[in-house]
């Protein structure tokens, strides 16, 4: 009987202990943009990915299927893929509907333009050196246009990787 009482008391104590310790925690997390570090980009985009992403970046809309089919054929039909891509990008930049900041807007806030351009095409922030150098390049030659800078990004090595 004594033993039974002892175990009953122990059981009640443990139950009380656990229920008394139960506490809920709520964690608050700030919104974070998930961006990719350039060092982790080791995979070459497929031709379909490249063309589709470039179209979206240039026009702000999804590439039409017929357009994609034509470009995919052009890709197959010429051996120098870099050359084909250069022509594709130039054709896209020449067509109506290109979403470009004005030169005035770019020069009014070069810092913002550079950051936005890196985010748009590389899905990441520029590093400190990249930001400084790009600003220096733009400010040193204010005849440079956003279109030419976009063209440089779109035909750069990093843009071909993810």
């Amino acid at each position, binding site marked *: 009987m004594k033993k039974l009482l002892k175990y009953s008391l122990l059981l009640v104590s443990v139950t009380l202990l656990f229920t008394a310790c139960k506490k809920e925690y709520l964690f608050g997390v700030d919104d974070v943009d998930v961006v990719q570090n*350039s*060092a982790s*980009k*080791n995979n*070459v985009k497929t031709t379909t990915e490249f063309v589709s992403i470039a179209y979206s970046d240039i026009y702000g809309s999804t590439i039409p299927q017929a*357009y994609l089919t*034509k*470009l995919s*054929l*052009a890709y*197959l*039909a*010429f*051996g*120098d*893929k*870099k*050359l084909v891509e*250069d*022509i*594709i990008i*130039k*054709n896209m*930049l*020449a*067509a109506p509907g290109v979403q470009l900041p004005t030169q005035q807007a770019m020069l009014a806030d070069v810092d913002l333009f550079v950051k936005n351009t890196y985010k748009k095409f590389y899905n990441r922030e520029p*590093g400190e*050196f*990249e930001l400084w*150098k*790009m600003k220096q*390049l733009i400010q040193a*030659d204010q005849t*440079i246009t956003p*279109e*030419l*800078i976009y*063209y*440089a*990004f779109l*035909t*750069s*090595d*990093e843009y*071909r*990787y993810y």
Partner: protein
Amino acid sequence: MKRRNFLKTTGLAAAGVIAAPYILPSGRLFAASGNRKANHVVFCLFAGGVRNFESIQKAEGNIMPNMLVGNESISPDIAGAIPNLPIGGQRLQTQGTLFKEFRYAQGPTGHYNGHTTAITGRYNDVDLNLKSNPEYPTIFELYRKHNSPGQTALNAWWVSNQLGPYPALNYSKFPGYGADYGANYVQPTTMFDPNIGTVMGNPKQFSQAELAKASGYRDFLNNNFANQYTSGDAGVVNTAEDNYNLQQFLKGTYTDVAQGSLNNPWGIGQQNMNGDCYNILFAEKIIQQYKPELMVVNMQGVDIAHTNFTEYCANMRIADYAVWHLWQTIQSTPGMANDTILIIAPEHGRNLQANSIVDAYGRYALDHTSDQKSREIFCMVVGPPSVVNQNQVISAVQGESIDIVPTIADILGFASEIPGEAALPGSTLQAAFV
């Protein structure tokens, strides 16, 4: 100056003069590594599976009157279906050597196998693998790697009339070779299709100064990124200068297509301008623009033989005219005229036994499934009289498909530079040459 020093100085100067590069009559800065027979080779893979019966044996008459000597009339039952195309002046046969019993000796008589053999100089039994480059170096890589001095890809072209596996034949996956030494590849009837022109033919025209500025930015961006998108992943990458040059050429061709100036460029009627003709036409444009040292161009229109024998013969007649036109273009292009050797050979033949498909003229169709007849082909080597034996016919069984690559290497003077690991199993077609 002391006598010893004088002798040393003059001796070095004399040695320098002897060893220094000099401009050759052909415009080359350096002498090639070996003795060249000619400075240009065009290899035409003729027609997509041609049986000796209908070609050089003329079983249906002389269907190839621009290539072959003879005026044998076409079989009456199909004569009306054969295009009445011009017959030029001197037949190609008289301007070179015809091997009447050439052989595609081993491996499946499939188009891709035949093309791969012709371009690598090795028989193979690979299955069609749409994304696979050949195992062994192509003639383009052998040329670009071992010819001295090395040439850019503008000097090596592979012009094919179909996509499928053919784009992969411009370079191999053989260690030490690959895209760095590959050929420029183009499939013109797709590339210059008017529909493709709507998305490729109107590029933004940046000025040279603008391109230089963009290049400066791109260089900075590339220098801050670890990976390089270059030869291999990006196919065969041309130099910046050649890239610019090529873009101007492509733009001009798109303009020609858009303006309709290529609708009937040879004056033989649009109905006769089939894919083979257009493939040869664009090959000619490349020849006129770049005067490449090495070009391989194919035709495959006769493959209609699987379902239509008469059309097979009709397309052979068109292919004959196209090759003649190609030779006229070569001979009228300064820099290539009288300095080019044209090699013509089908990739394989066709079966002895017909299949069960009958065409409108009551003729049975022909497949190619590795029977002995499908291994029997011809080869024609055409070139300047000082280099190629003229009007020579070799009727004995002599020469095979794997001999064409070493023959090209010999013509361009780099055969002896090919190292052991890439050594070719075939032999030069010596009988063709003076």
